[in-house]
């Protein structure tokens, strides 16, 4: 009888330590999860920031400006343009 008691007592102690350990692990993992969630949020914010930046850098206004003034580009005059229609004979200048 007393031997059984001792075995049960030891079992209880081991399990109690197990519970404490599991609880601790759960909390640690939860903290990690929180950190990852925060990181994810930050990444989204960063992504939005980058989209804004891209939007501003690629704005038609800016592209046009640097094409005309920076690269000295210009729309070709219509005399030097030709339209090509896929699947049809080429349309040439004047009809």
């Amino acid at each position, binding site marked *: 009888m007393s031997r059984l008691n001792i075995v049960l007592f030891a079992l209880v102690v081991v399990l109690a330590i197990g519970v404490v350990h599991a609880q601790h692990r759960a909390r640690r993992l939860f903290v990690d999860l929180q950190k990852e969630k925060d990181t994810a949020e930050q990444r989204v914010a960063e992504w*939005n920031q980058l989209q804004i930046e891209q939007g*501003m850098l690629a*704005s038609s206004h800016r592209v046009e400006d640097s094409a005309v003034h920076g690269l000295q580009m210009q729309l070709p005059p219509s005399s030097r343009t030709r339209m090509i229609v896929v699947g049809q004979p080429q349309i040439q200048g004047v009809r």
Partner: protein
Amino acid sequence: MNVGVNSSRLNLRLDGWRSRLLLIALVSCFAGLVGRAAWLQGFHAGFLQQKGEERYSRVIEMPASRGIIRDRNGQPLAISTPAESIWASREDVELSPAQSKSLAGLLHMDPRELAQRLNGGGRGNFVYLRRQVTPEVAQQIMDLKISGLFQQHGFHRAYPKGEETAHLVGFTDADDHGQEGVELAYQKDLGGSAGARRVIKDRAGHIIEDVESIRVPRPGQDIALSVDGRIQHLAYRELRNAVMVHRAKAGAVVILDTQTGEVLAMANYPDYDPNNREHLSGAQLRNRAITDTFEPGSTLKPFTIATALEAGKVTPNTVIPTGGGQMTIGTSTIRDTHPFASLTVAQVIQHSSNVGAARIALTLPSETLWNMFTDVGFGQTPKLGFPGEAGGRVRPFRSWKPIEQATMSYGNGISVSLIQLARAYTIFANGGQLRPLSLTRVSTPPSGRQVISSQTARQVTDMLELVVKPEGTAPAAQVKGYRVAGKTGTAHKVVGGRYANRYVASFVGFAPASAPRVLIAIMIDEPAGSSYYGGLVAAPVFSALMGNVLQMLAVPPDDPNSSLFDAPAAGAGSAEDT
């Protein structure tokens, strides 16, 4: 020996009441404890548990991010980024002079202004020092470790396209609520709702356990507008140029996809930068295309003609006597800019004859004309869901006098907004159908309502094509390679109840005329240069815009008489002749 003593000891017995007293005292002590325990455990437990939990559990607000507004190609027009607000609890702030200086520097504030915020003026203990600073700056401020200074999470709204889309997209206030434009119109979808949850925190302030979710946060939905960023840019640029060249007071452009009813672009000038909204005036803020009404002038004539065609009163070739450009009704005289003795119905449109339109209108019952105006949406709000939509004004037909019916036939005495006018014109481009407009992307076009027969629509379109011919009022509206249909308008403005020498120049047109895809409506308010006619002020804008938009949408040219491009000049460099 001393028996007496012995016997007295034997007789020494305590009085019975003393032990009973002690018993009662002890029992009542225990009863007291039991009672207290019962009180705490039974009746007071909730309160105590709550107090206990407050030591470690916290309710955390979970802010919902606002949805992104995009154009039809997915380009962002409005995006939220995290921002912090710095606030102070006045009584608790202790600043050393050095701290004060660096704080003012980080807040971009004058140190005196900062001191004034913190000490003087205003009631209450709570004061915002600056709202919407970047998280980096907020962190630097927090690193100063000033007591009584706190930060609050929020969002800052950025508008990458700035002025170009300002009137359409609108903006939000510091609390992330839409104030203007689409931001206000779609507040419900964009806004989302903040959530809250209960958590357990440890000593260091880390969240260590999620207890319960009180409210699930609902992030705002993204919205895809029907607007095309590239077309919007063109529209804005051309409009701004036109307003500046003609030293006009204002202007607006609306571009529609005639097949789906989608708004491809909507630009206004004067404008403002939604990213920097200091010193704003109402004139800058208004989305004139939607909120302002004007007398459309001659751009209304096609509706008069369409009504007469529908009623079978005229055919495009019926000859209308135009009395040398003058016509008197009662005491009033209607005049034409270019006088003719007589014109066919088609020529009435081509030369924009007021007398001709009036003569045709007077053959119609006023109710028929009123029905047409109402059927195409004049006098009613366009129901785009946009804030401040104007409905315009069409007076009830019972009160029309003949002179009023005559002037209304060419667009005086009736007021419309530019978007109403643009939408009304889609009946000619769409085989007589009027579709609802949409600011958001449409996958399947909503069914329209047949307002006029497709035959009438075709006939009016043919007349509108004459307008841009060399003899018409707007040859400047021609687009190389495409057949264009459109109508000019030049209306006197009503100032203080009478017509003044100020004008609204307008042009509404669509192309390709053989199978319309795009409709553009332009309104230039009070051009102050040498010319003020719609055909000279608004038509060139139309031509430039339409040419670009059609090429952008890869619409094949439909004009057999003029090529998209000039013939290669003889001997011109790289262009080979075949």
